[in-house]
C-alpha cells in the first residue's frame, strides 16, 4: 500500500550518479531515505485503519445497541446486523486496533521511518550498514502489514483475544471464533513483523557503532540517534522472546502440545492437555511487552529533544543527563514486566520486586521532563508545527506518567487493574506521546524527506484539534476507570442492573469520549491532506529551513544516493550550540570548527 502511494509521485530526477530503474528506486530500493518513506507510508495507512476501527467501537460504547448506518456501511450484515456491532466483532476491533497501533504504527512506523531516515544522515554515513537487509526489513514489514490487514476480512473474523492474545482464549477456536483463522494470521503476521524488526534493529546498531563520520564521537551524537540506538538494542533483546511465545502458542494450537494449556473443558469438549501454564505465556509476552512501551516511547522522546532544542534556540538542558536517562530507562525496562501481572496469581513476593523496579523508572522520566522544561526556560521559542507537537508530547508524558505511579503500586493495582484507568494511562503516556512525537518528526523532517515544505497554518489547526481531541478522549477515561469499569466491555448497560449512579456516569462520559474521538479523527484529515498535497505541490524546501545544527541539513535538498556529493562532513562540536554567546548566528552547525579559545560546552 505504501509502495503504491510512492509509485504515483516521481519528483526526484536522476542526478547522473547512476541510472536507477523505477523498480530499484521506488519499490525495491536500498536507499535508507526511500525505505524510511516507505515505512512512513505503510504506517500512515495502517494508522488510518486502526483509527477507523477505534471510531467503530467507540460508537457502540457511546450509544450501545443503537442502529448506526456508519457501522453497517463498514461492517456489513455479518458483523453489524441491523447496524448494531456484534459482540464478537467488538473484541476483534479492539484487538486489531491495539495490535496495529502498538506494533505497526508506533514501532514499525516510528522507528522504521525515523531511524532509517535520520541515523545515516545524523551520524554522517552514506547509507545503512547493509542496504539489502534494510530493504528486506521493509518488505517483511510490508508483508506482515498485509497479513494483519487481511485478517480483518476473514469469515470467522480477526483475532479477538485482545492485543495481548492471552491463551487459552487465543489457543481455542471453540472459545471465540476469532481464535480460528484470524488468530493464525495474527501469529504469522507478528512473526514476520518480528523478523523485520530484528533485521532493522541490528542494522541500526551496526550503523551507529561503525559508520559515524570523522569527529562524531558518541558524546557528540544528537539525542535522536541515542534514542534510536537504545531502542534498537531493546528490540534486539526483547522481540525474540515474543517470537518464542508465538511459536509455542502455534504449537499448542496446531501440534497438541500443552505449554499454555491445562485441564480445560471448552464448549463441552474435554481437552487432554495437562500441566501447561497460561502464566508462562504472560511472562514471555510481557518480557517483550514492557520494553515495547519504551521501544515506542524513546524514539518519540528523542525526536522531541531535537525539535525542542532547535526551536527554543537553546541547547538541550543536561545533554549527558538525557543520555543517562535514556540508558537507565532502557535498562530498567527489562526488569519491570511483572507489573502487568500483579493479579494473575503470580507469587506476591515477585510482585513486590516488580513494584520496586517499576517505580524506579519514574526517576529518569522525571529528569527528562524537568530537562525539557528547563530547555524552554528563557528560550526564544519559535512555534513551528513540529514545536507545538513536541510540547504537546511533554505534556502528555507528564499527565500519563503520573498515573503510572498508582498502577505500579501493586496494592493499589488490585483495585484498578484492567479498568479504564489503565486504558487512560497507557493511551496518554504511550499512545498520545508517541503519536504526537511522530507528528512532530514528520512536520520537522518533511523538508528532508520530500524536499518540500508542509503548510504551517494547516499544521497549527491539526495540532490544536489533535491535542484537545485526544485529551478529551483519554482524560475522562480515568474517571470511568476509577468507578470500576472494566476494559474491553462491549456494553456498560450491565451496570444498570446493580448500580444506577455509576451506570449514568459511565454512559455520560462514554458519549463525551466518543464525540471527542470523532472530532480528533476528523482532524487527522487535515494532516493527511496537508501531507499528500505538500508532497506534490508544496513550496520547495530551503537548505536548512529550521536553522538547525545537525548534519542532515548539510546534505543537498534533492536526494542523492550516498547523501553527500563530495567527501563526508567532519564534525567538530556537539549538535546543540544554539545561541552560543560570541557567535554571529544563533546556531552553529556541527561541521563548523571550534574557534580559537572556544570551549566545547
Amino acid at each position, binding site marked *: 500500500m505504501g509502495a503504491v502511494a510512492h509509485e504515483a509521485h516521481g519528483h526526484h530526477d536522476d542526478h547522473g550518479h547512476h541510472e536507477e530503474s523505477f523498480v530499484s528506486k521506488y519499490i525495491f530500493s536500498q536507499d535508507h531515505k526511500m525505505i524510511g518513506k516507505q515505512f512512513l507510508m505503510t504506517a500512515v495507512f495502517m494508522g488510518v485503519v486502526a483509527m477507523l476501527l477505534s471510531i467503530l467501537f467507540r460508537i457502540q460504547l457511546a450509544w450501545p*445497541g443503537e442502529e448506526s448506518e456508519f457501522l453497517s456501511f463498514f461492517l456489513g450484515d455479518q458483523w453489524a446486523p441491523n447496524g448494531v456491532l456484534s*459482540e464478537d466483532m467488538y*473484541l476483534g476491533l479492539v484487538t486489531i486496533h491495539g495490535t496495529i497501533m502498538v506494533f505497526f504504527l508506533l514501532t514499525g512506523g516510528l522507528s522504521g521511518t525515523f531511524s532509517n531516515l535520520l541515523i545515516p544522515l545524523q551520524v554522517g554515513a552514506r547509507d545503512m550498514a547493509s542496504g539489502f537487509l534494510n530493504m528486506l526489513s521493509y518488505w517483511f514489514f510490508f508483508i506482515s502489514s498485509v497479513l494483519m490487514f487481511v485478517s480483518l476480512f476473514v469469515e470467522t473474523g480477526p483475532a479477538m483475544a485482545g492485543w495481548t492474545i492471552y491463551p*487459552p*482464549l487465543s489457543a481455542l477456536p471453540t*472459545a471465540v471464533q476469532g481464535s480460528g483463522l484470524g488468530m493464525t494470521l495474527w501469529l504469522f503476521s507478528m512473526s514476520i513483523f518480528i523478523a523485520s524488526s530484528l533485521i532493522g534493529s541490528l542494522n541500526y546498531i551496526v550503523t551507529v557503532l561503525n559508520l559515524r563520520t570523522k569527529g562524531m564521537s558518541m558524546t557528540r551524537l544528537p539525542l535522536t540517534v541515542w534514542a534510536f540506538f537504545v531502542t534498537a538494542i531493546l528490540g534486539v533483546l526483547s522481540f525474540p522472546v515474543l517470537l518464542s511465545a508465538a511459536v509455542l502458542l502455534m504449537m499448542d494450537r496446531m501440534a497438541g502440545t500443552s505449554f499454555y494449556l*491445562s485441564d*480445560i*473443558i471448552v464448549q463441552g*469438549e474435554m481437552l*487432554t492437555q495437562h500441566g501447561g501454564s497460561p502464566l508462562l505465556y504472560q511472562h514471555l509476552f510481557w518480557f517483550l511487552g514492557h520494553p515495547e512501551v519504551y521501544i515506542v516511547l524513546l524514539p518519540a522522546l528523542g525526536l522531541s529533544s531535537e525539535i525542542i532544542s532547535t526551536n*527554543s534556540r*537553546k541547547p538541550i*538542558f*543536561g545533554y549527558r*543527563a538525557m543520555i543517562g536517562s535514556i540508558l537507565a530507562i532502557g535498562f530498567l525496562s527489562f526488569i519491570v514486566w511483572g507489573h502487568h501481572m500483579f493479579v494473575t*496469581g503470580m507469587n506476591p513476593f515477585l*510482585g513486590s520486586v516488580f513494584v520496586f523496579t517499576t*517505580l524506579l523508572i519514574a*526517576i529518569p522520566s522525571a*529528569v527528562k*521532563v*524537568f*530537562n525539557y522544561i528547563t530547555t*524552554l*526556560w528563557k*528560550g*526564544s521559542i*519559535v*512555534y*513551528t508545527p513540529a514545536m507545538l507537537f513536541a510540547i504537546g508530547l511533554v*505534556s502528555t508524558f*507528564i499527565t500519563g506518567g*503520573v498515573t503510572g*505511579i*498508582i498502577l505500579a*503500586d501493586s*496494592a*493499589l493495582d*488490585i*483495585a484498578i487493574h*484492567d479498568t479504564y484507568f489503565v486504558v487512560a494511562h497507557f493511551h496518554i503516556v504511550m499512545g498520545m506521546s508517541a503519536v504526537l512525537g511522530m507528528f512532530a518528526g514528520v512536520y520537522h523532517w518533511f523538508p528532508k524527506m520530500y524536499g518540500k515544505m508542509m*503548510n504551517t497554518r494547516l499544521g497549527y489547526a491539526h495540532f490544536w484539534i489533535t491535542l484537545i481531541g485526544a*485529551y478529551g478522549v483519554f482524560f475522562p477515561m480515568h*474517571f470511568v476507570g*476509577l468507578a*470500576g469499569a*472494566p476494559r474491553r466491555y462491549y*456494553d456498560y*448497560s450491565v451496570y*444498570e*442492573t*446493580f448500580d444506577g449512579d455509576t451506570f449514568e456516569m459511565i454512559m455520560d462520559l462514554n458519549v463525551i469520549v466518543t464525540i471527542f474521538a470523532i472530532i480528533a479523527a476528523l482532524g487527522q*484529515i487535515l494532516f493527511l491532506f496537508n501531507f499528500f498535497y505538500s508532497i506534490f505541490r508544496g*513550496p520547495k524546501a530551503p537548505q536548512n*529551513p529550521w536553522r538547525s545544527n545537525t548534519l542532515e541539513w548539510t546534505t543537498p535538498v534533492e536526494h542523492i544516493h550516498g547523501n553527500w556529493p563530495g567527501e563526508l562532513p567532519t564534525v567538530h562540536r556537539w549538535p546543540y550550540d*544554539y*545561541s*552560543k554567546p560570541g557567535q554571529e548566528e544563533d546556531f552553529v552547525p556541527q561541521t563548523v570548527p571550534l574557534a580559537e579559545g572556544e570551549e566545547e*560546552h
Partner: protein
Amino acid sequence: MAKLFVLLVIILGVIALAQLMRVYELSSKLTNKKENEISNRDNRLNAKLMLGFMLFLFIGFIWMMLKYGWTGRGPAASVHGEQTDWLLNLNFVIIILVFFLTNALLFVFAWKYVKKPGVPAFYYPHNNKLEMVWTVIPAVVLAVIIILGLNSWNEVTDKAKDDAIRVELFSYQFNWNARYAGVDNQLGKYDYKLNDDAANPLALMTTETIDKAIENMITGPNGIEDLENKLNDPKKVYSEEMRTDMEESLARKEQLIRLLYQMKARNTGKYDKRAKDDIITDTLYLCKDQNYELTFRSKDVIHSAYIPHLRTQMNTVPGAITRFKVTPNMTTQEMREIKNDEDFNFILMCNKICGGAHYNMNMVVVVMEKEEYDVWMKGEWKKMDGEKRLMKRGKIHEATFEHTYYKKEPTKTYPEIQAEKAEAEAAKAKEAEGEDGEEPTDGGDVVDNEDGQTT
C-alpha cells in the same frame, strides 16, 4: 442515500480545502512568505493558545473531579479496601500536585518565552546542582510511596487467618458459581475430568462421580461407544471435516478414560465426605466481619474475579488455583443506604477478556449480618440432597430465607433489542411472503409489504 450525501460532503470539503490552499499559495507568493519563517503574529497566537489550553486542561480536570471524582467507587466495603483507599488518596494528592506543577511550568514557559524580536535565548547547557535536585526529590518521594505500598501489599497477600471460611469461586464462559465447604469447612477435591454439566458441574471427586464419569465417557451421548458406532456405520456419510473432528474427539476420550480408570484405582473414598456436603450457589453470600479465603478456579479460559466495592481482584487460571483473602465490613443493606439506591448490589464482574459475552459475565455478591447469614446457611444445609447441587437463585430459598438481593432487570439490553427487531422483521417477512420469507433485504421487502397491503 445518506451515505451518498456524506461521501459528497467529504469530497466537496476536500476540494474546497484544495482551493483554499491554492489561494493561500498565491497570496504567500505575492507577499513572499515562506513556510519555514514563522511570523511573530503566529508565534504570539500559539503562545497564547498554550496558556489557554493549560486553563482548559486544569479547569476541565477540576470540574470533572468535582462532578465525577467520587461517583461510582463509593466507600470501600472491606477491611483491606479501606487501607487501599487511604493509600490511593495519598498517592492521588502527590500525583495531582505533580500534574499541576509540571504542566503549569511547561505551558507557562511555552507562553512566556515565545520569540521576541531582539531578545536572544539564554545559553544554558547544564547545571549539575539543579539536575541533582530533581533526581533526589522524586527518589525520596518514591521511596515513601514504595514503602507504604509494599507494606499494604504484604498485608493483603499474607496467609489467611485460621478462622477464615474457604469459599471457592468457579468461572466458566460466561458465568460464576460459588462453592461453600459445608459443615466441615473443608472443600471437596475435584478433577476437571469428572465434569458433568448437569449432575456435577464443578467436577467434584467422590466414588460415585468417578463411576458416573467413566460411564458417561463410555456410554453417554458422544461417548466412546457412540462415536465408534457412528464412525463404523457404513450407512452414514460424514463430511471430511466432521469425520476428522469425531476421530480427534474419540482419540481424546480414549486417552481420558485411561486416566479415569487410574483415578478410580487410586480412589479410596476417604475424601468423599468433604465433597458431599459442599454447597454450590450462583450468588456469592458473605457474612459481614468474617474473614474469607477465596480460591479461584476456571473451567475454560482465563477470567478475573473483580469485586470493585470490596477492592478485590484475582484472575482465575485454568489448571491452577489462585487465592485472595478478604473481610467484608459493610453489608449490602448499609451500602444501599449510603448510596441511597434500593436496587444497589455488590457485584463480581469478569475482568479478563474471555469471549463474546465477557461483558455480561457477573455474579451478585450479597453481604449480610451474622444472623441473616446463619439463617441462610441453615436453609442451605437443610436443602442438601446430594443430587440437585446447583441451586437456582430465588427458588430454593423461599421457605427459610426472605431476601431482596436479586439482580434488577435492565430496562432494555442489547440482545433484547436485537431479538425484538429480528422478531418484528421475521413477522413482517412472513406476512409479506408467506412461508418463503427467510432473510428480508432492506428495500425490496418494504415494497412487497406495501403491495401486500394494498391488494
